[in-house]
């Protein structure tokens, strides 16, 4: 597994652990009669599990298994994929923190914009690798 995939997948596992913990708190709170800021925790729970865990895992595995090139760097322009990793995680943390702390809506929006840029960067990296194996 290449280094960037290790980073993507391990970061995804961290979000899985944190996202499940938030989910457990949200589910158990009524049973324990705990008063929690559910409206603030729910967006972070969704952010961590959908983007931080699932999307990130998919990107990490895609970087690992998409067809490689015979000539030049075998995975093409890796620096764009690294940029995608950084932007995605800035986006997830910004959007989740914005929701949990209760920052103005602009903050989560900036987070989602960073996630959009991450998706664009990854597409730019992966586009030429979506080809016949060995071509």
């Amino acid at each position, binding site marked *: 597994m290449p280094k960037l995939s290790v980073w993507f997948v391990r970061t995804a596992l961290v979000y899985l*652990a944190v996202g499940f913990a938030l989910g*457990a708190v949200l589910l158990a709170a009524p049973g324990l009669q705990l008063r929690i800021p559910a409206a603030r925790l729910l967006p972070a729970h969704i952010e961590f599990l959908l983007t931080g865990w699932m999307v990130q895992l998919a990107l990490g595995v895609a970087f690992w298994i998409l067809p490689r090139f015979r000539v030049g760097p075998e995975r093409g322009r890796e620096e764009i994929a690294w940029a995608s990793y950084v932007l995605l995680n800035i986006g997830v943390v910004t959007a989740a923190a914005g929701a949990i702390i209760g920052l103005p809506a602009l903050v989560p929006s900036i987070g989602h914009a960073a996630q959009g840029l991450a998706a664009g960067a990854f597409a730019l990296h992966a586009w030429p690798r979506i080809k016949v194996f060995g071509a």
Partner: protein
Amino acid sequence: MPTLTRWFIKSAMLYLLAALLLSIALQPQFRDELPFLAAVWPTYLHLLVIGWLTQLIFGVALWLFPKHSAARPRGDERLGWASFVLLNVGLALRAIAEPSHALGHRVGALLVVAAVAQLLAGWAFVLNTWPRVRER
């Protein structure tokens, strides 16, 4: 394909089926006539996202990620099985407890057990998978 992967994937497919059948009941025309169906909405989402998607990922990752070692290619099998059992028990309990609670029944303890079981399932998976995610 390892035995545990087959259990994960087959269970995932059953959850997909259950979630899609439930989605029929969640159509607006039914919800308007039977308001209690709104209480099932979060359960539907979790059957789809945890029961189907996450469980499918767990099974495929267990199968295809780099091997832990020659002696224990898939890490600690007990952790893998614990993850499978806890996830499915937790999700099944949730499917009962969450709508019941929304409808006013006293099922607080069941909610807590479901939450803890799912949490431990996720953590067991992370613990078992982490050492297999490495450069070759």
